[in-house]
């Protein structure tokens, strides 16, 4: 989970990390759809996975992203 927290901080330095799973688009200053998109690209790089086109549009918060990453074999 540390790697995910670091990634979140890189893009959204003001994010409240006490409830990581609840974070997502609209929850934190500057976490808009454009920055979320950049964040998703970084998640792919970080965990060496590829989201499908649908996933890129639909995974809007950390809890969904983590679920998807687990399905792709990433362990947390």
């Amino acid at each position: 989970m540390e790697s995910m927290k670091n990634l979140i901080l890189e893009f959204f330095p003001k994010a409240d990390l006490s409830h990581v799973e609840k974070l997502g688009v609209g929850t934190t200053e500057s976490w808009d759809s454009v920055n979320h998109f950049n964040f998703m690209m970084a998640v792919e790089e970080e965990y060496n996975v590829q989201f499908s086109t649908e996933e890129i549009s639909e995974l809007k918060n950390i809890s969904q992203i983590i679920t998807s990453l687990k399905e792709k074999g990433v362990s947390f």
Partner: protein
Amino acid sequence: MKSIAIYSTNNLMPGNRKWKNLSEKYNCVFADYATWSSDFIEGENCQLIQEADYILFNLVLSDVFDNTQAQEVNEQALNVAFMPLESLLASTNKHILVAYSSYEFNIENVVSYAKQSSSRFRAVFQFENWLIQKVQDNKNLYLLNLDNQFSQIGISNCFDSRLYYSGRCRFSSQGLSVFAHSLLNLLQGFEQARKKLLILDCDNTLWGGVLGEEGIEKILIGQDGVGKAFEDFQKQIKHLKSQGILLAIASKNNYEDVMQVFDSHPQMILKKDDFVIFKINWSDKAENIKEIAEELSLGLSSFVFWDDNPIEREQMRVALPEVMVIDCPEEVAEWPNYLQKLTEFSQFQLTAEDLKKSEQYHIRAKFSNEIRTVANKKDYLKSIEMEPKVLSLTEETLDRAVQLCAKTNQFNLRTMRHSRDDLLKLNELGPIGLGSLKDKFGDHGIVGMYVATIQDRRTAFLDTFLLSCRVIGRYFESWLLNQCILSLKNKGVEFLYAEFIDSGKNKVSQNFLNDHHFVNAENGRVVLELNNYKFEQLEVF
């Protein structure tokens, strides 16, 4: 920090990790990607364009033309589609960088490709021709061929259809990374002075093997295998020389042995004449390179050092940190391409002066050698038959004048980096003189310049006075100042104001004004009363 206005036909993902390096060096302002055409039409009236130093336009052909309708891409259609770009070019002199890709038009199956039956290839051809024409017509337009850069890591890795359909971004993470990296390299072409001198080792650099141990018959150059790689490396070096880069040798070897290779080895591409200076001895390379700098009057920061030996490289880094040291690949087979890819030796446009460089420094090296051996400098200077001339600013001399302003660091009173337009405007305000010099060793070309602006009828200001460092120490600067004064007196000017601005690099010109009898005036400036000016007898011309 300089700023770039970034326009695009698709979403370049502002805030993406891949822009981070670029954003640390430039203030990157991303325009909304749909706004390029309206902003370009507004031109300098658009605030974003007005405030930018550079304008980047990322142009992906398939964002503008449908690749299933490729037959429609022709010159006329391109002119219509990119009319806003034309309009921007007409309204600004800022550097405009067009980063383009025609990738989607280039995806075609092998059968369609085989007889060129697809109209997509013709579309790409039309598009690139159109761009090339624009570059020829517009001095401030520069191209970045993205597909070409992408192809180095595999072009399909650089595009990502998922991102396109979910976020209108054409490029993958890797693609953005290559884009940002090549853009940074391109921008450095504007910001960094081109390197001037390539210093090469001999053994295992120009040829394979150690000459002193193996002898001239056994060294590897030419033929097959690694010898062929050394030959190709030499060809690349020779090409750099044809582009105006100076070559030198710094090698721990016996001088006669190396000369024998240059004189008699049939496979050597590089000949003695290709080098402006040889330092072949057993002393420390850094000492040798300091001597080269002195003898050629060139700054160490314009030197590049290529040596296969990592220990020599490390020592050079420590001893002379200003010198750029190339960490060349272990594998010699990679050297020819590696050398070709270095941007440090490139510049956007080569002037006729650049191409004559090597010859001129040959002359300079001979001159330094001779002058060290004569007792009376003035007698010597008289004997070399110097012929100075002053030229006015014309279409033929303008490029060189801009270049002198941009590149002269040492003998430059105010280091004003004037553009073409600046100079054309200044030319209305007073005399501009370009000094050229010939001597018995050859033609140095235009090596000095003054710009004086007449402020009211009686007073003028010396906006620029500079001299290329390769002719320092010949009284040419005094001669050129005389020409400037004569020209001003003819126009009725009585007082010439001037100033020295310390740039950190121009110490050599610090005393020039005092030495020529300028006296202190107000605001840190100095002044010369022209009517009482007694022209110095220079005796050397």
